[in-house]
């Protein structure tokens, strides 16, 4: 089986879809000739042409707006927003249009647009290259929100997203583009090549949108996480020698509540981990859902480990990031709580 990092896996997904479906087009800043600032679209313009892999002006609103129009005209656009921090100029087209077109036309019009965008910190990017704005988009109805944690899932989910007739916001945790990261900044970087999820079939396959993945089974506590935090949670569970069940949500909306329910009913404890700011973030929904669904099984309050409610700082990024240490302490806390 070929080994791929996440960038290569995403590239492979788009390559396959450009090849299988001539209605698939890519549009975004620097994605064409250059192949993208993270190289996710490397080589695709050469292979499929300038009218299939399109370099766009620096106007996120124009990228999303024109992608909607293309979608309405039968194409399946995959738009790249260069950093998730720059998605906001496209917010109106996403929120007011993309998410609601099918509803407001009773299904007569829809735009099967996928929006790919790298998110998350830990790369010394400061407050404008580190954000995780998923909590804004999970609040919308009419779009699906996905965030993979490894190359294998990334490819299967991206293909599923492109094939999906609903719009999908596809967040790519850039910290783990090249290798898994367990939340210990001082350890040397490791590549995906030694990781089992770095084994990626070169052919077409999909991972269904809407299904979480139990990446570690356990009895003592349920850890809900996604993206980079999956690796941090796994490392913390191991370091603390806790029998934790780690659920990689993969799709944030619609949420796979059933998988969560089964786990928390078994463990009775739950820790929610994400990198985004805490207040009114996506972790709040997870906590709210868990207490609604599993109230009578809960033995302790659901704890959240998240970015602080400040912008992402350049200097103290490892105090901001939910590191292995922070997650480990939360595990200890939740287990000590009666």
């Amino acid at each position: 089986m070929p080994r791929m990092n996440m960038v290569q896996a995403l590239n492979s997904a788009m390559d396959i879809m450009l090849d299988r479906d001539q209605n698939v087009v890519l549009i975004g800043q620097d994605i064409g000739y250059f192949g993208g600032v993270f190289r996710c679209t490397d080589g695709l313009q050469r292979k499929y042409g300038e009218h299939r892999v399109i370099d766009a002006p620096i106007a996120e609103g124009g990228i999303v707006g024109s992608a909607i129009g293309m979608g309405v005209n039968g194409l399946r656009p995959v738009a790249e927003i260069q950093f998730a921090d720059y998605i906001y100029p496209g917010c109106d087209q996403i929120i007011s249009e993309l998410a609601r077109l099918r509803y407001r036309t009773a299904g007569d019009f829809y735009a099967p647009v996928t929006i790919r965008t790298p998110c998350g910190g830990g790369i010394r990017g400061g407050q404008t290259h580190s954000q995780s704005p998923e909590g804004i988009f999970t609040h919308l109805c009419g779009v699906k929100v996905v965030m993979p944690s490894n190359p294998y899932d990334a490819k299967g989910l991206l293909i599923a997203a492109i094939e999906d007739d609903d719009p999908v916001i596809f967040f790519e945790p850039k910290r783990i583009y090249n290798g898994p990261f367990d939340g210990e900044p001082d350890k040397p970087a490791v590549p995906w090549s030694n990781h089992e999820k770095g084994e990626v079939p070169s052919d077409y396959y999909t991972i269904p949108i809407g299904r979480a993945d139990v990446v570690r089974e356990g009895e003592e506590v349920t850890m809900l996480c996604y993206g980079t935090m999956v690796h941090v949670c796994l490392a913390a569970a191991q370091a603390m020698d806790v029998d934790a069940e780690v659920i990689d949500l993969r799709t944030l909306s619609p949420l796979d509540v059933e998988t969560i329910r089964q786990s928390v009913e078994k463990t009775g404890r739950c820790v929610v981990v994400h990198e985004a700011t805490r207040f009114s973030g996506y972790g709040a929904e997870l906590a709210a859902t868990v207490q609604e669904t599993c109230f009578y099984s809960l033995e302790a309050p659901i704890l959240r480990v998240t970015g602080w409610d400040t912008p992402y700082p350049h200097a103290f990024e490892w105090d901001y990031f939910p590191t292995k240490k922070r997650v480990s302490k939360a595990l200890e806390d939740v287990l000590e709580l009666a």
Partner: protein
Amino acid sequence: MSRKPRLHIPPAPARPGADPDFSYIDIVEAGSVPRPDPHTRLREIPNSLIFDMVRVLDDAHAPVGPWDPQLDPEELQAGLRFMLETRLYDDHMLRMHRQGKISFYMKSRGEEAVSVAAAMALRPGDMLFPSYRNQGLQISRGRNLADLMNQCLSNSADMCKGRQMPIMYHWRRGNIFSISGNLTTQYPQAVGWAMAAAIKGEDDIAASWIGEGSSAEADFHHAMTFAAVYMAPVVLNIVNNQYAISTFQGTAGGERRPFAARGPGYGIPGIRVDGNDFLAVYAATTWAAERARAGTGPTLIEHVTYRVDAHSTSDDPSRYRSKAEPQAWPLGDPVERLKAHMIKFGQWSESRHEALVAEITEQVASAWEEACSYGTMAEGPFLDKNELFEDVYRDMPTHLIQQREQMLEVDRWGEEN
């Protein structure tokens, strides 16, 4: 704030009580603007297309100059009919709002030519991305009036299944896109649709309409930039009806330059057209469509017209503009002007006109009857309220199935309690 403020505020022409003043509108003689070949390069297109005004009908209602589209009598009669249908439909719906039959309405009186002539100049396969004041597009493409009314009634036959406010129509089969409550969003969408047509090598084009007030929104800039960069086959229309609710076109940036002038700055030709001259709108649209279809690129058309009535049924223009303005509007009424033109050339008569008005009035009334048979706000048949949860996604996810169940549970509980 020690010193005297010197922020410039664009002056409004005539507030309540004042005499109307349209001296700011530059109007040139009909026929005076040259008509370049549609494939002319931007640099060679004369500035008069932007600063003057493309007009075909002269003061004596004769067509003059190079832009005369030379339509035959049947086409003129069709145009007149569609404009009248639009107007009488509007009048009827306003009455229905006054009677509490619909919750909201927006008329297009005085702006009928902008939609009708454009729709007729385009091909049926061309995709239209309208604003909320383009009902004439629907009507010119042959939409049943009852279908439009069903939407305004949110009744059981509403194409939107009750999900949108009145007038937010769409028509998939008729190639008319959905109207959004959010201004200008359709503009870059139209450009994207046109880009897709070019990518697929198809020769259908897109057209979109916004008000002059809406041109201040970001999406105007997005649309212009993308249209210019990719030379998208699209006709972008700005309907300058002088007002955006209460604010005058100067507040949108029209004080020192016509909106048509935005075009060339982006590398897109602009045309300023007499929006109340059916023939001029037809001609300008034809020119732009030919250009787009041949791959020569997009065009920006500013239609100079006047919003005769209130912004919407929630608005009262007597609070912010001179009551005498509509009568003082120097470009007249599009229906009257086309009618006078046809009569002058023996293609129409007062009596035929009266008969047509009567016929359409009857048509509107019976359409209303038909629409009401599908339900009104007060009486059934109603839409199935389960529909509330459909079409958020293609397939209903679990949480919406559960929420629908909760809604029904509350109903059952309510009946018991």
